[in-house]
């Protein structure tokens, strides 16, 4: 399962390297699951419960990374607003600003709760904003294996990484290959072909891939062959795998659970329009979150996010 896979990755990396430590709110009690057992295994100098001061402790993680530590910080995307200064002014900018002197091996676990009645203050999916700002690697795993492998790569990477973990995937099952040598390392910037197809390319982001795969299965019954691609990381982005797929299918739908304006979906569509224009046989389409805050009521919230049905319609739209 997704959360367990993350937990495994963190355990393995903390075991491998003493410089890795884990920090966040109530992580010793592991209220969200991924830090389960860490405190018992690694103790108070490696697993830190912080006060409710995200700007302060994320800044402290940044500072510690400058002098040799490799922090993993747990938070929710929605709590990152209070820490934006340290995330942007320091974490993202420091290395460049200081001409490369700084090394910032900081991994941030940014959990995204949405579509679960958490309302506007707890449902952010802010990865497009971090894509707009240079200096941070943006990771969006869908499957347990990727969550584990990308997490391990992030911890070893010398640049700032934010893993946007889709809270809806917490219960997603999936095999994580055995790795007695602890080497399930998935490289950044390499997309994954989730399903081959010939009629339309669907690029899915995070939880979007689950709906995309369901839609592909349903569409197959209608004789429509959908190729599903998971970029896995948005910075760096594997644009080749997307452009190559569109070259084959001639059609593109992007499924993105973040707000649709200036979204990752907008970006991917703009790239394909600029660089794969002559391959497109129909207008590309976006299935992204409605441009509205997340309402609490379950009468409205589910209307906002990508669904199998919306994807099916979009794919069919490209085939008209």
């Amino acid at each position, binding site marked *: 399962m997704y959360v367990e896979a993350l937990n495994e990755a963190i355990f393995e990396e903390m075991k491998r390297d003493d410089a890795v430590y884990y920090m966040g709110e*109530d992580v010793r009690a592991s209220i969200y699951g991924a830090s389960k057992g860490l405190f018992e295994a690694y103790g108070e100098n490696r697993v830190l419960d912080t006060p409710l001061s995200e700007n302060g402790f994320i800044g402290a993680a940044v500072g510690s990374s400058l002098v040799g530590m490799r922090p993993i910080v747990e938070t929710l995307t929605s709590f990152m607003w209070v820490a934006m200064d340290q995330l942007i002014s320091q974490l993202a900018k420091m290395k460049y600003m200081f001409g490369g002197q700084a090394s910032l091996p900081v991994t941030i676990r940014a959990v995204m709760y949405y579509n679960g009645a958490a309302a506007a203050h707890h449902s952010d999916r802010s990865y497009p904003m971090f894509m707009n700002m240079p200096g941070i690697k943006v990771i969006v795993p869908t499957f347990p294996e990727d969550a584990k492998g990308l997490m391990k790569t992030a911890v070893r990477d010398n640049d700032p990484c934010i893993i946007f973990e889709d809270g809806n995937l917490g219960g997603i099952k999936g095999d994580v290959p055995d790795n007695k040598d602890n080497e399930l390392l998935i490289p950044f910037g390499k997309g994954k072909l989730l399903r081959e197809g010939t009629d339309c390319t669907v690029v899915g982001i995070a939880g979007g891939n689950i709906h995309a795969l369901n839609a592909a299965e349903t569409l197959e019954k209608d004789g429509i062959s959908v190729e599903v691609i998971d970029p896995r990381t948005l910075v760096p982005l594997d644009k080749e795998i997307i452009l190559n797929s569109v070259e084959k299918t001639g059609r593109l739908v992007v499924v993105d659970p973040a707000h649709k304006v200036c979204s990752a979906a907008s970006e991917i569509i703009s790239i394909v329009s600029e660089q794969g224009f002559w391959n497109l046989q129909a207008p590309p389409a976006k299935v992204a979150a409605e441009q509205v805050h997340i309402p609490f009521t379950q009468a409205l919230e589910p209307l906002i996010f990508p669904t199998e049905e919306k994807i099916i319609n979009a794919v069919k739209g490209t085939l008209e």
Partner: protein
Amino acid sequence: MLARMIRIRLFESALIECQKSGEIVGSLHTYIGEEAVAVGSCVALNDDDYIAGNHRSHGHPIAKGGDINKAMAEIFGKRDGYCKGKGGSMHLADFSIGILGESGIVASSVPVATGAALAAKLKNEDFISLVYFGDGASNQGACHESMNLAALWKLPVIFVCENNQFAVTTSYKDSVSVDHISDRASAYGMPGVLVDGQDALAMYEATTVAVERARSGEGPTLIEGLTYRYEDHSLGLASVRRDQSYRSDEEVEKWRKRDPIEVLKSNMIKQEIITQKEFDQIEEKEKISVEKAVDFARKSPFPAPEELYDDLFTDPIEFA
């Protein structure tokens, strides 16, 4: 005072039942055990004074005299709720009676309430504002900035820290570097008062002093009400494990024994302000009104899909 405290207790208890039965979704942060803090302070305010609160959010509006039908309907995600179902449990608000809203991001309403007090000063009107935040929240930079601003400009605002001794699983002793949050008032040049938060009258008295100070232009006060929450940090969010190891059963029992409703009741009975019979009558009346509220909430319709984009802007904007 007593009626409102009982109302909060029964309201929360009804919610717990409705959550168990699956009628309401999302997480609930109940105020049971802390009733004296909100009620004792709110009754010291005028109707046209303002309050703002946080995620532990049902006690404040009820203490200010809010309509429990609307509050209940909101938590049910219904159209007749305070926020038409868009806010939910963590975002109750009633601008018509000075309830400027609860905030899911901790400490985030502290600057907002400070701003309402700024308006009083700029308009030269004599309303004041009061804000509730937790012991955990006190460590946010927003508190520092607001307290400095309020003290500097002598704004009529009262900062009420509800020290229920924990932020989720973290003791305030592990998050606040001094003995008491009220000790920090001196760093801003304002009075800081530590109050028995189980004693509604003590809260009332401390707040009354602060209200006078605020209204006469002398500036803000920081009140720390020492209290306790009986339940888990939040109920319902499946991913937040009910780990109670951070506090002992004995400790919980000890606090339950000094229940704020009992404290006030026995005080009033001793002073012959009410009789046990009158108390029972009040309780009975509140019970009926809470039952009615549940009924009201059940019968209220859900918002319709067309309402999704309403209330985002004053006039709707079309997004591509």
